[in-house]
């Protein structure tokens, strides 16, 4: 019944992406891969060995890689460009916007090392916690952030079938397994994972969802009943599901491995402002830069720990009752 696992294992979202693409590649010869000297980082050898000719490595130049991908896509190919997420979405931001999104070309971007979870040891230059905000403001760009490797594989298959530009954030390859294999992935749908009650809603995205699940369980043991919602598709946002939960709870906490500005917290705040008033606390990086270190410890240090979620839930409930 419950598709959430014990969450004590890890599995690679990078390998899962390549596996997902290989699920689709035999039946869709238009699918191809583009790298910016990122073939090894992407763990893409199984694909490149099986499909020589269906991949292109332009070298360490992400802007060129995106423009090159636009050229490929203009002929009907379906390139997936994969490298470090920040280099796609920040260094090549203009190419993504003007030459892929504006002409609505079928280029998919797969950003690895997204958030603290990805680049925890490399430091801030190799992390990115701004890209949800950047890409949410680009017209027509779809954004997906699966919670674990199994979901990445399914999300990859879903994206391969979609027309137009999209971005998927993946991680370092050491993400917790959250769902068992039977968990589906339905593009564009927010899903209610736990419905203990309507005291407050917790909205979470990405592998950090694990902490939200634990927090919701601990709160339930204290008698505080939340509704936990995974928002794996940030754009298009499932406004109706989110608004429906807010209507019941009138209090919400968002949790994301991202700056609190521009990402899930901002998106939920927009729904609150436009559709269903509620109290809100946004958890994520509080408009500061992170640092090198173990990801789980960094989350605790930068106020994304389970205790932070618990405290935030209590806070929004108290404010609601004022």
């Amino acid at each position: 019944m419950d598709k959430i696992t014990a969450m004590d294992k890890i599995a690679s979202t990078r390998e899962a992406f390549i596996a997902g693409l290989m699920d689709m590649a035999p039946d869709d010869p238009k699918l191809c891969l583009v790298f910016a000297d990122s073939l090894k980082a992407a763990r893409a050898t199984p694909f490149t060995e099986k499909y020589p000719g269906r991949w292109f490595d332009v070298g360490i130049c992400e802007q060129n890689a995106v423009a090159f991908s636009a050229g490929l896509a203009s002929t009907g190919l379906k390139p997936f460009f994969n490298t470090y997420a920040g280099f796609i979405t920040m260094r090549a931001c203009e190419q993504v916007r003007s030459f892929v999104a504006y002409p609505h070309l079928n280029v998919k971007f797969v950003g690895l090392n997204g958030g603290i979870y990805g680049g925890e040891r490399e430091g801030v230059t190799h992390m990115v916690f701004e890209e949800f905000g950047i890409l949410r403001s680009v017209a027509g760009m779809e954004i997906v952030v699966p919670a674990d490797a199994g979901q990445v594989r399914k999300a990859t298959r879903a994206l391969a079938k979609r027309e137009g530009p999209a971005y998927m954030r993946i991680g370092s390859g050491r993400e917790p397994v959250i769902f068992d294999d039977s968990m589906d992935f339905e593009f564009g749908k927010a899903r209610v994972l736990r419905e203990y009650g309507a005291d407050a809603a917790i909205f979470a995205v990405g592998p950090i969802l694990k902490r939200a699940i634990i927090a919701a369980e601990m709160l339930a043991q204290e008698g505080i009943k939340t509704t936990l919602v995974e928002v794996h598709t940030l754009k298009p946002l499932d406004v109706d599901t989110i608004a429906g939960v807010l209507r019941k709870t009138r209090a919400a906490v968002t949790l994301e491995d991202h700056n609190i500005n521009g990402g899930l917290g901002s998106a939920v705040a927009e729904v609150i402002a436009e559709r269903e008033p509620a109290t809100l606390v946004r958890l994520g990086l509080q408009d500061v830069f992170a640092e090198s270190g173990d990801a789980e410890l960094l989350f605790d240090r930068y106020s994304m720990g389970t205790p932070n979620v618990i405290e935030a839930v209590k806070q929004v409930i108290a404010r609601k009752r004022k």
Partner: protein
Amino acid sequence: MLTEKARMLRRDVFSMIHQCGDGHPGAALSITDMLAALYFHVMRVDPQNPEWPERDRFILSKGHGCPSYYAALARRGFFPVDWLPTLRKIGSPLQGHPVMKKTPGVDMTTGSLGHGIPIGAGMAAAGRLAKLDYYVYVITGDGELNEGILWEAVQSAAHMKLGRLIAFVDNNGWQSGGVIKDVSGLTNLAAPFAAFGWHTQEIDGHDFDQILTAIEKAKTETERPSVIVAHTIKGKGIPFTENDNSWHKRVPNKEELAAALQYLGGS
């Protein structure tokens, strides 16, 4: 024949910019002869089927020269000539810079400089993968060679041996702020391409024999991309616009338009 086509395109360009009240006549006029050669002699295209997968591709990397491009496409039959006066107006398929999904015959959206060669490389690589024999032509500006992304693609296109990628550099010697050697210091434009492994040629970009011969020669290079540095005159074809950088972005008034049309043999 090409000379007359080019004169017609230049008449269109000046008229369009006059009617629209905005645009870059100087940059449009220096590329007119190359566009006339490409669209009326060289390129394998079918105006009735602008999405034909086997067509040759063209990218106007210096998108601000688009009045010439639009005129060439209209006169080649991709869309009605009476669209031309709608340039840059609300609802027009002719945007201020080229947009592939709004204008029949435009193979790629451009405007932000430096992107023609990178995108063209992708098109050429895709053609090779699909075993199609189309060529990809790019016209890039000379000032545009300041852009870093362009050199990223010069490296990778040579490495990929994209022999069907043929780029012109419209070497009119000017950029927005003045003479290129003063503004950004670029000289000897072919040399860096050669250093990265491209086949290079230098021609008079207003001499049709030289343009056509250079393209034929570039086509014989199957293992490396080609650049044709075309020495051109900014504002070419109208005596009072030639080599006068005030026409980089300037709108001809009624008298100037009449004088230009008279010179170009139209009315």
